[in-house]
Structures are given as C-alpha cells and as structure tokens.
C-alpha cells in the first residue's frame, strides 16, 4: 500500500473535466515532481491533494487514512507557494509559527521548533523582520520554514522557484534537494521547468490536459518516452522530429522519427539520410548547436538541431548531411506512440 495514493481522482469545473481519473501511488520519502505545459492541471492536482480544491470523484489516501474530504489543515501536510504567500504584517517568526499557534501548541514547543527550522535555513538573523524587509530568496526560505515547522507527512511545492532569478533558482534548487535528503519527507513538487524536474525528482509525472502521460524516473522519461508528447517535453533543446516518408530503413508503422540533438550526427552530404543547409551555429563554449534546414522544408518548420561537444569548423550556409544511429532513435506511429516502447 502506497503512502499517498490518488485513486481515479476527478475534477470538474462546470462541464470542463479538468482532472481525468488520475491514478498515482507515492511512496514514503519519495520526491515526486509534476510537470506539464500550462493548463495541464498540475497545480489543480496539487491543490486537490492539499484540500484547497474539492475532489469530485475518486479517493485520496494518506498513510492508510481516507482524506478525500478532510479539511486542509487536518490533512497533515504543508504547502509552499509560488508567491511565497507570507503574511505581510507578521514577523518571520510569527509567519513560521502561525499554524502551531492556531493549533494551540505550547509556547516553549513552538519556540523550539521555530528555532530548529530557522537554523536549518539560516534564517536566525531575520526572525524579527517582516517579509517586506527580506530578499526574494530569503522569503522563499521563510515559506519553506513555515512548512518545515509543522513537521507534516507530506510537503507540497507549487512552482516555488519561478519568482526567483536564474542564479538564485539554481541555488535554492540545491537547497531544496539538501532539505529533502535531511528530512526524508515525502514531497510533491509542481513545476513547468524540466531542469527542476530532472534534478530534484525521484520520479517525474508528466501531465497533459488533465491526465497522466507517463510516470518514471527522470532518465526513464528521457531515454524511453512513451509518446511524442513526453519525448518533446523532456529535453532541451527539444528532440528533433523528422517525417519518415522517403527515408530508408525505418520500422513499419512509423510516421515520424525522434532523434535527440546529441544523437544527430553531421556527416558529408554523400548518401546521408537527410541533406540540408546550415542555418545557424550556436557556439556555447562547452557545446555547439548546429541548426540545419533540410532540403524541401518550409521556412516555418523547425530546423533540425545537432549538438556536439567540440567546436565546429562549419560556416553558415554550408551543405551537410544528417544521420543517426537507429538504436538511439525513437519512432512514432500516427497516434504519436513510441513504437520501441509499445512493441
């Protein structure tokens, strides 16, 4: 029996079936990340777990108890919000202790728990300040501290890093990973940033239009996406998609080939599978991205991108061939299913 499980969970907004019979089992101590494009329902699903949105069908179980219709504060979980959601008129200390004070916890116990959380997050010098007087990163740490103080069974994070600048985001990401290691708490984390998903998650849940496309470890999703959507969603730059008509040696039923940029090989024109013209070369130092426009492709189509970890001698406008090793390619049928996985 899983620690936190969603069984055929549904959500309706009027006629809109926002969450479509989602099933998911999360083990104790696991770090699960929900990813998906905007509007896929990942935040809604998280709020349903939190109890902030009603569950219109199915059940939600936590630690053997049915919490489908339990009010948020009795579910034994804590949430960190994108906008931090700190109470602006309260000091850091009061923000962190608000839940415990409402629960009527003993003053000495509250003080001890706040002190512990503050120490873990390096917030000790700021306890008397109001959120206004803190930087974005510090505010986010207070929000995390507020969650830690309650020692919940499950931590919920709703895009906690998207309000931070790039440098701080990387730093806070590492900090969240460290905290999860130290606390060993079960965590559900929503993001649209696949780097966060790949680096933080034990398992990633890819959502689209209210249902789960695939659940797996980050590398499983990268190496064996079940369909074109997951293949394109995970990986940056996106996986190249190539129409297979006119290309030799593709499996039966395949209409598109998916080749990750690092598996796309630049060759001489010769008898390459695809011939084209170099449109753009992005030299990033450690890697080089070569954009190639295949012959006959419309100008509004995405160019194919080959990534190599050496500097390129090519110039823009050069004629090249493109090829790939079939063991590293994915082939998709008309439904977008990955033939290698489904076969």
């Amino acid at each position: 029996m899983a620690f936190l499980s969603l069984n055929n969970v549904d959500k309706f907004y009027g006629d809109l079936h926002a969450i479509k019979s989602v099933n998911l089992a999360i083990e104790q101590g696991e770090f699960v990340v929900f990813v998906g494009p905007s509007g896929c329902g990942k935040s809604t699903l998280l709020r349903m777990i939190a109890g902030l949105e009603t569950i219109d069908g199915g059940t939600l179980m936590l630690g053997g108890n049915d919490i489908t219709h339990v009010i948020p504060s009795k579910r034994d979980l804590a949430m960190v919000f994108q906008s931090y959601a700190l109470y602006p008129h309260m000091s850091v200390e009061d923000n962190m202790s608000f839940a415990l004070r409402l629960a009527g916890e003993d003053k000495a116990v509250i003080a001890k728990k706040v002190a512990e959380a503050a120490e873990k997050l390096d917030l000790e010098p700021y306890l008397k300040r109001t959120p206004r007087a803190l930087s974005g990163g510090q505010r986010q740490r207070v929000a995390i501290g507020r969650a830690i103080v309650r020692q919940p069974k499950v931590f919920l994070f709703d895009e906690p890093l998207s309000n931070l600048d790039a440098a701080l985001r990387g730093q806070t990401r590492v900090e969240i990973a460290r905290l999860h290691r130290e606390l060993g708490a079960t965590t559900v984390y929503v993001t649209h940033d696949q780097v966060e998903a790949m680096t933080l998650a034990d398992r990633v849940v890819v959502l689209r239009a209210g249902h789960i496309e695939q659940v797996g470890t980050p590398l499983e999703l990268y190496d064996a996406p079940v369909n074109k959507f997951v293949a394109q969603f995970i990986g940056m730059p996106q996986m190249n998609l190539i129409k297979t008509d006119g290309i030799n040696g593709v499996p039966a039923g395949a209409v598109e080939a998916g080749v990750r940029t690092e598996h796309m090989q630049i060759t001489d024109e010769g008898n390459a599978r695809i011939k084209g013209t170099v449109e753009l070369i992005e030299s990033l130092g450690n890697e080089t991205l070569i954009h190639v426009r295949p012959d006959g492709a419309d100008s509004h189509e995405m160019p194919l991108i080959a990534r190599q970890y050496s500097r390129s001698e090519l110039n823009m406008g050069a004629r090249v061939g493109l090829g790939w090793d079939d063991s590293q390619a994915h082939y998709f049928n008309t439904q977008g299913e990955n033939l290698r996985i489904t076969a």
Partner: protein
Amino acid sequence: MSSRTAGAGMHPGWRVLTYAILLVAALYYLLPLFVMLNTSLKSLAEIRSGNLLSLPQDPSLAAWSKAWGSACTGISCDGVKGYFWNSVKITVPAVLISTMVGAINGYVLSKWRFRGSNLFFGMLLVGTMLPFQVVLLPMARTLGELGLAGTVSGLIMVHVIYGIAFTTLFFRNFYIGVPDDLVRAARIDGAGFWRIFFRIMLPMSLPIIMVSLIWQMTQIWNDFLFGVVYSSGDAQPITVALNNLVNSTTGVKEYNVDMAAAIIAALPTLLVYVLAGSYFVRGMTAGAVKG
C-alpha cells in the same frame, strides 16, 4: 519620485510661472475659508461698515459661543451644540458599521466567490450610482414600518445601507490585489473564514480602512437630505441645524454667527482630511500601483 524630477530640466522662468499659477489657485480656494473665519471674528457693526477682506479690528469669539450655545435654530435657542452631538452619534456608528460590513463583503466577493457573486457585486455597484432622491420615499416607508422614523437609529440605518455599496467596492477592489495564495496558505495553516479575515486580511487593510472611514465620514457628516427627511426636532444632525440657524432671523442677519456655525459644522471633516489625508491618497492608489 516623478514629481521631483519633473521640474529638473525646466527653465527658471517657467518654474516661477508654475508656482505663481499654483499660488493663485491656492489663494482662490482658500479665500472663502478666510472670509468665513474673518467674518466670524468680527462684530456685526464692523461687518456692516467694513470691507469683506479687512482684518477684524477687535477679534472676538462672541459669535462662536453664540453659535455653539445660544443661537436660535427654528423655535429653540440653544445653539448648534446639541445637533453637533447628534451628528457625532449618527456618524460614528454609521461609519464604523458600514466600513466593517464593507470589509466583510469585499472579503467574500474577492476570496470566497460563490455562484452568482459577480452578479451580486454588479448589483451592489448600482447602489453607488443611485441618487439619494430615488430612495427617499421607499426608505421613509421602510423606516415607518420598522418604527424607526424620526430617530437617530433610523438615520444610522439609512446611512449604513447607502454606504455599504461604496465600502464594499473599496474593500473588494483592495482585496482583489491580495494574492489568493495568502488565503490558501492560511487555510492549510488551520485558519477558517473568520480567522483569516481578522488575523490576515484586516491587519493588512489599513490604507483601505482609512479610505473607507474618510469617505463615509465625509458623506455622512455632510449629509443634509437624509437628515432633513428622516429626522425631526431634537434628533436632527448639524447640517439641518445649520440650515435652520441661517434661516431663522430675529430682525437682523447675524453673519458672524452664521459663519461660526458653518465652520463648526465643517470642522470634523476638515480635521479628518488634515490628519488622515495622506492615507486617503495612498489608499486610493494602493490598488493601482503594486508595492
């Protein structure tokens, strides 16, 4: 910020002209107040002989004490003091109740939306556009049915009902700018509807509370129409008493007493603006500019 930089690159001549225009405008607006104060300190003889703008030769507060304590308003001659306290007794509860109800309404309409809450808010907005005159008769009927006709409580009720549309609008628009996540976080922390309101929302609302208080205070204190229609005799507010005072003459028109009474009637709202005016401006722009 921008006001400081606006004149930075200006030719000195233009700046002198700007200040000259502002000065003239300020004097123009201050002139009536000056004339009122000036006249209230003069004796009747001096008013009749002298220039409107000349300073009093022998300043005296006699007119003020008469206006406060012994001037005739209609048939009684006890000054405006009783009516001043009537106005206080009407204004204070009416302002507090309408602000409180407006805050709760605004909280519900922004953070606890229900089916039809937008329609409800739209209908409330109509209330801000209704002229006083339209509700006079139905309200008189209602007060009569409730047995509140001609009483201070009745007048308080009228002002509360009429004010709720405005106070709800203020608070609703202010709370729209408060992130919903704040309410969600408080719910997870274990706070319910009222605790979120009293411990999270209300403590953040100082600017809009000030706007609501000032607005309602000004409206209710300065109201004449509801006062004259729904109250009678000893229950009348100061605006009605002022009208009666100015209109009841015993042979001579006592301009100095009229002026003193008028200033007394206007003093509370003036004071509120002087003391809390900066909050008013801040509160009105709070929703428009973030941070």
